[in-house]
């Protein structure tokens, strides 16, 4: 089926998320929608899927204008979507998830689970998915859950399939498998929309590329275009894709983690006997697919986890058992994974956020009173130093873009005298310009002799920033390897294969 979007415009108040976007996707092609976070890709797809109503423009399927008042209409017309955040009910089985919304019933209103199971098996066999219809979704690995999403779409006879940032949660191997599936679907005649911001994937799988920036279509490209060309089209200027850094100068101080075990309240052992060392002047990147214990590890470094055993020493001092305040006072800087929840108070101004961690005494507070002029002076300096793009220091942080919010967090954490810097996913949801800046600051911190731990799920970032890379899988350390380890070896390690075996497999 041929999909055409004509002049789609969607506004949220004053913000124009989509500005007269035209797009044509033909059957039997993979059409990539490339753009930075916040460029308007997801908004456009939500319009297509009936979750939002467009303010202007129309959607055509095989040249017939469609009116979708909800996802049900879009699905009925043959549009299927594999959402970035899976739309699966975790406690339901695969079959129940697939049948939901178009259930067949037998006598007595009884659900016809057998029909749903058969359908799952049939589609699963056709694409070699190995999905058991009776597995409960929450027990499945993320890659398999994504296949359930695909089965869901196919069970409704979708001819147009939209993949919204599908590789964000996958290992490199799973990503390769997904691309094979996309090609197979294309060859069977589906029209495929592939939304992403990862250049490598676009060039590998797309037949055509449309680039979106600030809600507008800014150009089309062929997969033969270079990374540099695509990046500058996406960002609107030429960008530096590599991080400049010299060889590390190691010092004696540092962080030492020994036999760390972290248990969650559910009984899951999130971090299972992890040991590593980071010395002053080097960057250790903790790589791995999201959800393999990295979050808990970084939180434990700051004292945010309760059930912790083992040892964490910083310059010889034990950190386990100390309060968060105590650990901060030891000189630990921390950029949390989810800045909007854990890093900032959205309603507070930039100036207030910048002093959140120093409200317990001079120079920001004297005799219980906030020193506002000092605070504002401090904020003005930091805003300038960290290039926060804002109208003023009294702007609520929630109104800033993701990149500028992250710069505020960074400014706060890096302006103490640090002896350890921990940054979890520092560039997630951040524009390319800010990514360059953040990377430079991380390297500068390392060069100042501070041990740096960065958690990243993006292999590109891991390789660019790291002096050494530690790969985690299911709460354990798969291996700690040099930053120049081949990417395919790292990819295999992210799937739990030991570095020796991974090298053997690649060779």
């Amino acid at each position, binding site marked *: 089926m041929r999909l055409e979007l004509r002049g789609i415009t969607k506004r949220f108040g004053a913000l124009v998320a989509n500005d007269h976007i035209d797009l044509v996707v033909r059957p039997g092609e993979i059409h990539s929608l490339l753009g930075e976070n916040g460029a308007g890709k997801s908004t456009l797809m939500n319009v297509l899927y009936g979750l939002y109503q467009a303010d202007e423009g129309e959607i055509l399927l095989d040249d017939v204008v469609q009116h979708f008042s*909800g996802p049900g209409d879009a699905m009925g017309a043959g549009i299927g979507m594999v959402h970035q955040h899976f739309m699966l009910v975790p406690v339901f089985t695969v079959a129940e998830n697939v049948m939901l919304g178009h259930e067949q019933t037998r006598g007595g*209103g009884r659900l016809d689970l057998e029909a749903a199971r058969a359908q799952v098996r049939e589609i699963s066999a056709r694409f070699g998915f190995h999905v058991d219809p009776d597995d409960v979704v929450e027990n499945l690995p993320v890659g398999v859950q994504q296949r359930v999403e695909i089965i869901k779409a196919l069970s409704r006879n979708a001819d147009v399939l939209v993949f919204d940032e599908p590789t964000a949660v996958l290992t490199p191997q799973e990503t390769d498998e997904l691309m094979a599936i996309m090609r197979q679907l294309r060859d069977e005649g589906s029209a495929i929309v592939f939304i992403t911001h990862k250049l490598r994937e676009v060039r590998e799988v797309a037949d055509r590329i449309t680039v979106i920036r600030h809600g507008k279509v800014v150009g089309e490209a062929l997969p033969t275009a270079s990374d540099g060309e695509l990046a500058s089209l996406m960002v609107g200027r030429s960008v530096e894709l590599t991080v400049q850094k010299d060889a590390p100068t190691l010092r004696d101080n540092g962080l030492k983690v020994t036999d760390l075990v972290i248990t969650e309240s559910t009984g899951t052992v999130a971090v299972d006997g992890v040991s590593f060392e980071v010395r002053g002047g080097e960057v250790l990147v903790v790589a791995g697919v999201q959800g393999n214990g990295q979050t808990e590890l970084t939180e434990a470094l700051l004292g945010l986890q309760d059930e912790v055993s083992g040892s964490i020493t910083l310059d010889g001092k034990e950190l386990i058992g100390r309060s968060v305040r105590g650990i901060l006072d030891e000189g630990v800087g921390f950029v949390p994974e989810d800045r909007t929840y854990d890093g900032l108070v959205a309603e507070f101004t930039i100036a207030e956020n910048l002093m959140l961690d120093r409200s317990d005494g001079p120079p920001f507070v004297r005799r219980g009173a906030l020193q506002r002029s000092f605070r504002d002076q401090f904020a003005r300096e930091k805003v300038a130093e960290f290039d926060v793009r804002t109208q003023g220091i009294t702007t609520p942080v929630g109104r800033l873009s993701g990149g500028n919010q992250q710069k505020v967090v960074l400014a706060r954490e890096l302006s103490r005298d640090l002896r350890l810097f921990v940054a979890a996913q520092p560039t997630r949801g951040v524009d390319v310009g800010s990514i360059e800046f953040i990377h430079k600051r991380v390297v500068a911190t390392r060069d100042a002799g501070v041990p740096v731990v960065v958690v990243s799920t993006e292999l590109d970032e891991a390789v660019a920033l790291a002096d050494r890379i530690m790969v985690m899988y299911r709460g354990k350390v798969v291996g700690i390897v040099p930053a120049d380890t081949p990417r395919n070896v790292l990819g295999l390690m992210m799937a739990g294969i030991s570095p020796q075996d991974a090298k053997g497999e690649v060779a």
Partner: protein
Amino acid sequence: MSADQRTAQLDAPLSETTRTVTLVSWKSAGVLLAVTALYALLLLAVPHSGDTRFLLSQRGDFFQIPVIVLPAAPLAWACGAVMLAATAFVVLRTARGSRTPLWVVAVFAFAGLTGFLAWAGAGSPRDLSVVGLLGGAVLWSVPFVYGALGGVIGERAGVVNIAIEAQLLGAAFTAGIVSSVTDSALLGLAAAVLAGALVSLVLGLFAITYHVNQVIVGVVLNVLVVGLTSFLYSQVLQDDAATLNSTTRFSSIPIPVLSDIPVLGPVLFDQPLLIYLMFLAVPAVWYALNRTRWGLRLRAVGEHPKAADTVGIDVVRTRYNAVLVAGAVAGLGGAFYTTVYLSQFGENMTGGAGYIALAAVIFGKWDPVRAAFAGLLFGFASNLQNVLSVVGSPVPSQFMLMVPYVVTLLAVAGLVGRSRPPAASGEPYIKG
């Protein structure tokens, strides 16, 4: 862990799934221990001697079982020993890292209540009727069970039904008037269903449409209905109590043959319509929730409303539907007060039964069958007072009135174990 073991662990292949350990809580062991200690203290401090007479048969049964006479003190201590054994078992299991199974708690509770009965009924010349004990428990559990079913249905769809109390009381009031005026218990029952659904409609309007905090709306509704019914009672019902507040009640329908079985017959098969309906309602709700399209969609909306939305399910409609059904079912429980229990409405006559039903929902882990059994347990506790006052127990009745609430508190606080409510429970669904 020795160094050798640790190396062995590192060499082992990485498992496919993350390791899990069972985090044990000493809470249930602690609660059981405390209750056992209190029980022993009671026996020691206030020793009762004499016999307790347990009456099992009624006239008209197939065969007669003679009255069982047991010496009270040894029986009470024997029950105490069973409680201690159950406690020790739980302590051992906890030490080994396993959870407390529910059946141990059930054995413990049964032993404790039997021992308490033996102690309280000691030396009384009157017989302690086992039929009265169990039959009364079934009767008293009616509002709890219907209320809990209503709570389960609402919460599985993602709407916390704190307003069970309001639904019960509103339904009791409405059923009272309608059955008084029409002289028909059945019409009263129908009116109760409508009243329960009406309370739900208000709950839905605020909680679903206007995204108001569900707990607050529920509590406000509970208070509102108390005020409203009390006002109408004093201003309207009392003026003409003969026509407006003398209800027609359901009479017991003995089921031929079955009702003559000793003990079980009168307890289960000689009851009014509303109770037979309850026996059917529990499996019916279970079936509807777990085996039908209605139930699948309802649960989907309570677990992950956005996922339901993206497959074309109208979340708001599904939730309204669930909440209305929940209110209707709870309304059946409210009808108990004025069409089964008493023949008139009294101010605030539900007396917090809705909150106990809410506790049954949690104790029953959001499952209709388990919640119904929890309701039955609370019904048993509520009925103790009646039984003991018949026997002539030395325990002050005010103390006995407290028992069902204490049992509820213990059940919810310590013994329920880890359970997981529906993921989107209490979360309003806001699109976009």
